[in-house]
């Protein structure tokens, strides 16, 4: 009886050791790739918000990001797009609560700190076919060229079909909740970023 128990414990030990070793081995081998993939999603989103940075494949995207995008202490948390030694734009990270789960993305801002150059998301799980359409070009493209407003909310989403004034884009019909939350989180993060940028400019 005692021998049986000892055998069971020993057997479990051996089996666990063998399988864990194998899993750990595979995980270690692929770890770099996994991390690179996670980073790549973010890098691509940052590149996508600047109209003139296009890439053909993942490797090129990564190379482009390494070359052109910098993280500078004076950008208040945004990524800086450097072109010919000059600042060409900022990619401001936005994050917050969506309808179902967090939405994370970046908003590209021109070096005038006011004009949007693009918007991209790298994490969202909104309702497919409704809220999830925020990742589609038909929704994202109109942001390009929109100027952030200084009085009132920087960006406003108005119902589809209504006329647009400066600083406004159309929401997605049927996805009112997603759009309201997106508007809120964008405005909050953009305003905070703009404030800390103007503070920096105030103290040379």
């Amino acid at each position, binding site marked *: 009886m005692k021998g049986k128990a000892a055998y*069971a414990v020993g057997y*479990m030990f051996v*089996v666990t050791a063998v399988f864990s070793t194998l*899993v750990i081995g595979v995980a270690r081998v692929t770890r770099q790739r*996994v991390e690179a993939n996670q980073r790549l999603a973010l890098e691509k989103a940052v590149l996508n918000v600047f109209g003139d940075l296009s890439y053909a494949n993942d490797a090129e995207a990564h190379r482009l990001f390494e070359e052109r995008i910098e993280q500078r202490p004076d950008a208040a948390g945004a990524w800086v797009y450097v072109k010919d030694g000059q600042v060409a734009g900022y990619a401001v990270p936005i994050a917050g609560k969506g309808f179902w789960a967090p939405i994370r993305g970046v908003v590209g801002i021109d070096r005038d700190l006011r004009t949007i150059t693009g918007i991209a998301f790298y994490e969202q799980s909104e*309702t*497919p*076919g409704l809220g999830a359409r925020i990742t589609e070009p038909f929704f994202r493209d109109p942001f390009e060229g929109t100027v952030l407003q200084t009085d009132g909310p920087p960006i406003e989403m108005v119902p589809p079909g209504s006329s647009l004034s400066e600083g406004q884009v159309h929401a997605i019909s*049927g996805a009112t909740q997603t759009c309201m939350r997106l508007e809120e989180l964008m405005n909050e993060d953009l305003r905070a970023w703009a404030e800390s940028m103007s503070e920096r400019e105030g103290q040379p």
Partner: protein
Amino acid sequence: MSPGAKSQRDIMLDGLWRDNPIFRQILGICSTLAVTNLVLNTFVMCAALTLVTLMSCLTVSLLRNRTPRTIRMMVQTLIIAFYVILVDVLLKAYWPDMSRSLGPYVGLIITNCIIMGRCEAFAGSNPPIPSALDGLFSGLGYSFILLAIATGREVLGMGTFLGYAVPYFSGPYWDQWIIMVMPPGAFFMLAVILWVCRSIRPKEKRA
């Protein structure tokens, strides 16, 4: 092994139809709710599950004579978890987009009752080849039902199949059924498919 050993034909038929894990045993339906809104996701999920079931059954069967009965469940869980983590890690590394859209559900294959059920009911007391066959065909039986659900959901809910627009359903005359894209849609599709499959199946007595 025993005189009541099943023929290979029986094993295949049982897994695919007569003892189908979804509509006969009602096992593993958690994943039918979560991953069946797009055919492509479902396909990957089914492939992962079939692979894991096949390999787990094979491994459990190979070790069956050495494994003490008292700890067989622990060993089975360990083996299943091993293959699931393997699939998960490989997806993360080589197909990150798919891994992201499947989310935690790949990891949850571990808790899919079909695998545990097959290991415990069949692989634990049968030789490797029939066990592997049993695992494979149970996985396939699961897969074809799931793919049927996913097809219905994607076509009705988004008007696409594998991401390609389906004529009429994507057109202006079809109002897409949003509920089909959301988890409750899977309940209704599952119910309809259970209903259809059970009405097709001739009534027979099983022990």
